[in-house]
């Protein structure tokens, strides 16, 4: 199919899919925006990775010193790996938690569906900080969870590992990003024709078989879209580590990057630290794109 050339004036009555000026007329504003307000600033920032800083002055001489630091000082690879594992765990858990609810909303509920769906979004309306802080109350040594477990007799000493720990961050992340997983899942499941499910049931397949052979494959775009959000939100966060983690600045890579800009005033090193994170999320983007999370995949 012909590719568009921007110089042609738009003609009226262009048929859908005939790629004339259409995409570019549509994309001019959004892409202009992204170019000016994202890609250009990002480029300027990433250029910093190859510069250096001397006290307050940025020296724009090309150098690989920062990248060497990132690769050789064991601090950075350790924390990047830790962040990757955390983000993966949170993403997988979110899928497991969100799927039943999204399916329930899309296929089992008819009355009050809007209300139930809105209830998924509601938790987002109360401040993220407040919710993270609420988890602190729940997970603390004398918090609700420990009080409950003591009361049931399951434990006789409070478990301190819930709070100021990776466990605590994991639970909090799973909670705060959950709506970002539920909504795209709901969107794909809602479009799943009921007739397919009925056909599968009529053919005698069990619920599990229907799930594995019909529902799951067709919901992959939604799963990938939700995963992309949850994974990347976790990869970049430093607020939850600061409230729930034990060592706010160094639990996850977000904190280390933040500190390079917000404390150490070492922008070049901060920019260099962003590069591996960038690589990880771009790989994820590529995978998600293959599965159609960002729209219809190319034939």
């Amino acid at each position, binding site marked *: 199919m012909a590719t568009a050339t921007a110089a042609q004036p738009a003609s009226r009555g262009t048929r859908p899919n005939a790629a004339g000026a259409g995409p570019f007329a549509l994309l001019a504003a959004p892409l202009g925006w992204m170019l000016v307000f994202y890609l250009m600033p990002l480029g300027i920032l990433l250029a910093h990775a190859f510069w250096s800083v001397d006290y307050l002055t940025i020296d724009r001489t090309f150098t690989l010193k920062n990248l060497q630091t990132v690769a050789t000082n064991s601090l950075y690879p350790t924390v990047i790996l830790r962040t990757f594992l955390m983000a993966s765990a949170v993403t997988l858990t979110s899928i497991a938690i969100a799927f039943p609810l999204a399916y329930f909303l899309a296929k089992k509920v008819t009355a009050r569906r809007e209300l139930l769906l809105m209830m998924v979004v*509601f938790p987002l309306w109360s*401040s993220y900080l407040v919710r993270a802080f609420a988890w602190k109350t729940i997970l603390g040594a004398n918090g609700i969870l420990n009080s409950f477990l003591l009361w049931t007799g399951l434990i006789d000493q409070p478990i301190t590992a819930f709070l100021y720990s990776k466990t605590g961050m994991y639970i909090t992340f799973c909670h705060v990003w959950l709506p970002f997983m539920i909504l795209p899942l709901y969107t794909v499941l809602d479009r799943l024709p009921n007739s397919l499910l009925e056909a599968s049931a009529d053919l005698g397949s069990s*619920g599990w078989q229907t799930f594995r052979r019909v529902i799951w494959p067709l919901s992959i775009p939604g799963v990938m879209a939700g995963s992309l959000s949850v994974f990347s939100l976790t990869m970049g966060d430093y607020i939850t580590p600061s409230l729930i983690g034990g060592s706010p600045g160094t639990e996850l890579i977000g904190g280390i990057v*933040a500190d390079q800009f917000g404390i150490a005033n070492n922008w070049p090193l901060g920019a260099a630290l962003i590069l591996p994170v960038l690589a990880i999320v771009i790989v994820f983007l590529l995978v998600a794109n293959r599965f159609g999370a960002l*729209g219809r995949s190319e034939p």
Partner: protein
Amino acid sequence: MNLANELPLPRPRRRRGPRNSGLTAAAVAVYLFLYLPLVVVVLYSFSATKVNAWPIEGYTLDWYRELLQDGDIWESLRFSVFVGLCASGVAVVLGAMTAYALDRFRFRGKTVVRFAVGLPIVLPGIVTGVALLTFFSSTLGWQLSARTIVIGHVTFCITLVVNSVAARLSQLPRSLDEASADLGATPWRTFRRVTFPLVRPSIFAGAILAFTLSFDEIIVTFFLTGREKTLPLLIWGRLRRGISPEINAVATVIILVSLVLVVVANRVLRRSGQSLF
């Protein structure tokens, strides 16, 4: 579908009861998980002590009284709503255009466009924040203000709208468009009469997501904020002194107000034969 080959004889349809009740129980459990922290927030907004200690030692309405008189909170709440509306408004228009173009046209560089649009939500918020901060302050020489916050929010809100709308568009059969075109409709008419009604739920979903993310955002905002503060920034600032139950009171009020808004919005939409989702 090879199910038919494996199971040539249709079995009687299963009773739906047990399976459904399992699913319902799971859904209820997820709702409980979603709402447990909110219940904590609401409970502690009535706590008589200043610190979120457990168990609650006494109950009071003082925090609500204090909240009523706290001009800073109301000012920042107004500001947050304003920023959220501007950001989600701009993002919905730009995001829907992008999603539509990506889905309906083939053109060179499409993958690049997808990636460009996906990046802001994928990269750590601090990257967006600091990149825009350098850009605005040193490259453009702008003062930080509501304008810089809105622009920062729009960049990542676009991605949410694109994701939401694109996921829906990808499932719409193109034959609908083709049929519409064969019947002589212009692309605009096809869009307005066929495509738009079908993607409207995802646009709504995208808009709501965009607003909520903007309303809640703190990392990008921290770097781009000028003299006025959004509610999350105000809360962040106060958390540094130890949380006051007043913050829980604000959150409670926001939850209630949004509940009312959504119920009303839903009623209005129903009356005109539409649905929010």
